[in-house]
């Protein structure tokens, strides 16, 4: 290329742009295109097949008047907050324990990580079974002599989300622990020396020095965990299927149910749009902080 004339902007680093084509197409066609398509059809009364018969915001009005949807949103919020707090909390705690120069670190790590290799469907089934009052944990404890022992979280509307949580944490905390452990090991050894010289207790060092330093790790973990929570579907379907009543319904299940079982695409799309909107509300401030503020110099 001649060095004298400024190259056409688009052609500069052409190879890099060609290489980014799959990403650009994916984002534009699938994520942006699919989202816009979904939003457009959420204003129609499409049933089994998408049709452009406008009904204004009727689908949304129906959505927000629907007990099931409201229950699903409520459940997701509750489960999401609990899951986020416990996944990150337990993950961090385990990582701290694993970081104490323990013996058999490899063994412990494998034990904690292997559930992540299993699908949510499997996780849901196994835990449904272990928590089954008739033959699971409750029954076993009763047979050992504690007749009045009662542990049946999945069939009580007030506790079913905790039952899901037990399974969700089982599957996900190992991975979080690995992320956190990686973060802990990325921290400069000098920090520990400095803290010891200053006579700061270890737990204080963790809370006031180490955790702030691990901000990027926490953010990555948060993104991964949050993405998983919003998509939560397989686990619930396999473990409780939304029962008892609506006590463990999730928005993704509502979407799927109305799109395919009820054959009311418009309603499903309206629910999808609300979910996407809530994702945007969370993500836009994050993206702004992440990319908006800093520039390379």
């Amino acid at each position: 290329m001649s060095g004298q004339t400024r190259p056409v902007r688009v052609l500069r680093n052409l190879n890099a742009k060609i290489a980014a084509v799959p990403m650009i197409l994916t984002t534009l066609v699938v994520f942006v295109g699919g989202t816009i398509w979904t939003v457009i059809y959420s204003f129609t009364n499409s049933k089994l097949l998408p049709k452009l018969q406008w009904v204004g915001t009727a689908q949304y009005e129906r959505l927000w008047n629907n007990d099931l949807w409201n229950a699903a949103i409520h459940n997701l919020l509750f489960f999401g907050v609990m899951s986020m707090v416990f996944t990150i909390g337990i993950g961090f705690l385990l990582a701290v324990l694993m970081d104490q120069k323990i013996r058999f670190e490899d063994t412990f790590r494998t034990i904690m990580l292997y559930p992540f290799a299993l699908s949510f469907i499997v996780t849901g089934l196994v835990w449904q079974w272990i928590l089954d009052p008739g033959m699971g944990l409750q029954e076993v404890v009763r047979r050992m002599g504690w007749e009045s022992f009662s542990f049946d979280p999945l069939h009580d509307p007030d506790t079913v989300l905790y039952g899901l949580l037990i399974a969700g944490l089982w599957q996900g905390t190992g991975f979080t622990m690995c992320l956190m452990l990686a973060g802990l090991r990325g921290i400069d050894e000098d920090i520990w020396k400095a803290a010891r010289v200053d006579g700061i207790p270890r737990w204080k060092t963790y809370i006031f020095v180490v955790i702030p330093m691990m901000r990027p790790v926490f953010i990555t973990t948060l993104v991964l965990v949050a993405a998983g929570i919003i998509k939560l579907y397989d686990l619930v379907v396999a473990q409780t299927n939304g029962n008892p009543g609506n006590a463990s319904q999730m928005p993704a299940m509502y979407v799927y149910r109305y799109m395919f079982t009820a054959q009311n695409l418009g309603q499903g799309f309206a629910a999808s749009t609300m979910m996407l909107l809530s994702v945007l509300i969370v993500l836009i401030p994050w993206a702004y902080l992440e990319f908006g503020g800093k520039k390379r110099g």
Partner: protein
Amino acid sequence: MTHSIQVKDLKLDFGSVSVLKNLNLDVAEGEFIVLLGPSGCGKSTLLNCLAGLLDITDGEIWIKNKNVTWSEPSDRGIGMVFQSYALYPQMTVRGNLSFGLKNAKVPKDEIDRRIARASEILQIQPLLDRKPAALSGGQRQRVAIGRALVRDVDVFLFDEPLSNLDAKLRAELRVEIKRLHSRLNNTMIYVTHDQIEALTLADRIAIMRGGIIQQLAAPQEIYNRPVNLFVAGFIGSPAMNFLKGATVDNGRAIQVGDVKLDLAGYDGGQPTDRPQAILGLRPEHLTIQDHAEAGHTIPALVELDEPMGADALVWLQVMGQQVSVRVPFERRPVKGAQVHLKVDISKASIFDATTELRV
């Protein structure tokens, strides 16, 4: 003399931030230019622009009388050495040296010849089959220099090449780079924040601040006649002393506190009267004596001294302002003594306090 590098009206913006502002630079062939400045001054950015690693916003860059403004880095006839060495960790030293040549499709025997020559110059023959991880810092930087050397180019770009080395190695390699320059005699652009490197290596130093070259001149010129307060304060260690005052008597004298100093012999012509002037005095251009000389001395109170081996730096109080003076160790005055400082006005600089320019 032919131009080796010409930078014409170079501008670089990152978004709304202007990093380089209308920058011009002419470098003669074989010249050793050091870009010096505090961090964030744009010196490394300028080097990256010369290398073609950053796309500029406006202006032109010419290397060897060729407009290379938009050429690929590898087509500009430059070699570059980085602060972190940037050796490819998975390749041996030989692989590192030959990578660029292979990309340029240089014939095999030519590659071998050039590697042999470069490794002889840099004395790295025994290291050729090692991986970078097995080398010491100094060895790594030699290899990094070798990578520029084998490219057989006219211009070498150094981006703080010695900053990661300890003081002793740094001094050794500094001499080696100087030797290399005198042997190869090609153009070198060298970015550093270390003024010793700048003063020892450069034919000319470009002092930068805020994306602007403040002064481009030979080291002695910069040392003795700094163009403004910033350059004056930045160059020289220990730093230049500044005393607030005013030029009086039609510029024939400078009033500092209640002392008036005669400006006869000032290198810079007759300054006009300025109510706000700053007198710049380097510590080595002051002498301590116990008697006053009207128009040539300032009274001072000795506060403390810093022994520096052969010399000592004496800190004194001059009319409420701090002044340091370099004296031979054995001639340092006692603490608390009332002394007089003799000013060598021919080596002093006077700055306008508002424009900060030397007068």
